[in-house]
């Protein structure tokens, strides 16, 4: 230990000296946080399992069931779903649901970090807060997409092969959805104090958002007020975009879907960054 001490002495003379302190760059802070989220994801195998199994249950038990039931009505039933088989209609929604749930879980990460103290380690660092937050969201988005890709491959096989181009386009749509939901989940979590509160909000939000997303049924025939709610739901644009990209069927022009989704993402990111920049312990 004495040798180490002597070695350390040099460092300490500098420590006690006039060192100006370093400037962590935007890129470094972003990379560090993205890396951390991905390292965490690697250690949490159960998360992968969880976010795949739930949507898969929907696809198999809900999708296969209704697909069979609708097909009993004959080809007329397909008119309801823009000419798609129900399983195909459902498939893009399932992919979006996977990344959406995984992305929202990003907020849960913030809650746990606050609970277990790691939040302070980040707050007390001199790195630009927006960079730390963006990196974190990006890392969670990539983690969500790993799950999204796994799901997309599964779904494409079960429901109907959309072609490599269709699959890629669908995944691009899923990526934007993942980003939007991570940002949204993070924004909500930053305003929450307890894990319980976050769970309540998530449950209150997630179910209506999923049902009004057009993932399970088309929203065009809905009463006007419900449709209005759907148009306010970012998930709707995500599902419509993914379906349009994969199978060429959409209710809203794809450009509009993409614009709506981008707007939600940017707004959530900006709000979350602003909130995080002003975060104190007390």
């Amino acid at each position, binding site marked *: *230990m004495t040798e*180490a*001490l002597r*070695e*350390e*002495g040099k*460092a*300490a*003379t*500098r*420590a*006690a000296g006039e*060192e*100006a*302190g*370093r*400037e*962590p*760059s935007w890129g*470094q*802070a972003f*990379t*560090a*946080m993205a*890396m*951390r989220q991905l*390292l*965490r994801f690697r*250690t*949490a195998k159960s998360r992968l399992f969880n976010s795949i199994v739930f949507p898969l249950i929907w696809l198999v038990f809900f999708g296969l069931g209704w697909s069979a039931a609708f097909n009993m009505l004959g080809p007329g039933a397909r008119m309801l779903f823009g000419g798609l088989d129900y399983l195909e209609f459902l498939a893009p929604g399932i992919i979006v649901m996977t990344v959406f749930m995984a992305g929202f879980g990003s907020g849960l990460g913030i809650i746990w970090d606050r609970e*277990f*103290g*790691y*939040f*302070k*380690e*980040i*707050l*007390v*660092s*001199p*790195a630009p807060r927006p960079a*730390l937050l963006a990196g974190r969201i990006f890392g969670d988005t990539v983690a969500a997409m790993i799950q999204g890709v796994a799901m997309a491959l599964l779904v494409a096989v079960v429901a109907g092969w959309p072609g490599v181009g269709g699959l890629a386009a669908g995944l691009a749509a899923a990526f934007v959805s993942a980003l939007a939901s991570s940002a949204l989940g993070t924004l909500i979590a930053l305003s929450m104090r307890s894990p319980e509160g976050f769970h309540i909000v998530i449950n209150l939000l997630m179910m209506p958002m999923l049902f009004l997303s057009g993932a399970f049924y088309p929203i065009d025939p809905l009463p006007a007020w419900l449709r209005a709610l759907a148009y306010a739901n970012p998930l709707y644009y995500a599902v419509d975009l993914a379906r349009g990209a994969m199978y060429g069927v959409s209710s809203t022009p794809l450009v509009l879907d993409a614009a709506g989704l981008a707007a939600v993402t940017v707004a959530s990111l900006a709000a979350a960054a602003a909130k995080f920049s002003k975060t*104190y*312990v*007390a």
Partner: protein
Amino acid sequence: MDAITAEDLRKSYNGFEALRGVSFRVRRGEVYGLLGPNGAGKTTTMGILVTLIRPSGGRALVAGFDVAREPREVRKRIGVVFQEPTIDRDLTAWQNLYIHGMIYGLGRREIEEKARELMELVGLSGALHRPLRSYSGGMIRRFEIARALLTEPQVLFMDEPTVGLDPQARARVWDVIRSLKRLGVTVFLTTHYMEEAEMLCDRVAIIDHGRVIAEGAPEELKARLGGDTVYLRAASRIDAEKLLRIAGVYGEARVAEDGRTVVLVTSDAPSKIPSILGEARAAGIRVVEARYVRPTLNDVFLMLTGRSLRDEEGGWRDWMRLHIHAGRR
């Protein structure tokens, strides 16, 4: 330039005053302790100094920068070990260190070199690639000290560095802090253990109910009590009376209720006891027992507040403070 200057720091939570004007200065290279019972305002003070709590009033400079107006400049120059662990348990020590280094602007090679040195300094060389989940409480605390030193901070902050540790783990953390002292690192620590403050700190501020009630080197503070207490037991009451006259020359002396023990309050007892005993022998007085007690910081606290630092309970105010803090966390 001082490492830390705190001027009249105030903080209230929903009308409750946690700090009511805390001022002190910490010089470069010293180990400075904020000593006080639970709920006295130590953690709040530290929170302000490390830029995570906004003061309601007053001003603090750390490494020359205002904590409220230039928090990023302060953050670049400090290392912090919080009371509760602030680590990612799912990652290894190395991964935690690497991410820490990156968000402080260090390069990979630099982090690698320093990580090895620092893990050795805190006695964790073999555990660099183990997940922190497998670390004990004491190892985590030492790891956090190493992590805080990674960026060569000008001031190292430690909030209750040994709370919740078993005696052995505590002793190892003390060893680490002592080596930091030898290295000239400025350390600011809070503690409610007076032994810890006495043993480690060059100077301490005693804080109670949001106010600094005394400041100085532990020896200085204890000297204010008038010095050591010497107990000399004579063989008989008559001897005790004679002994009292001799001892009276060295300080304030009286005979205790047993009639045979002379109690003397004096500075620097070890140097005076031999001469008293010498004079006593010359005068033919038989002294059957001689001992002395050094005052502790607890005695200082007792003198200033009428309460003991040792009783953990504290008053209802402390209780309220703790609960308010817990709620605000």
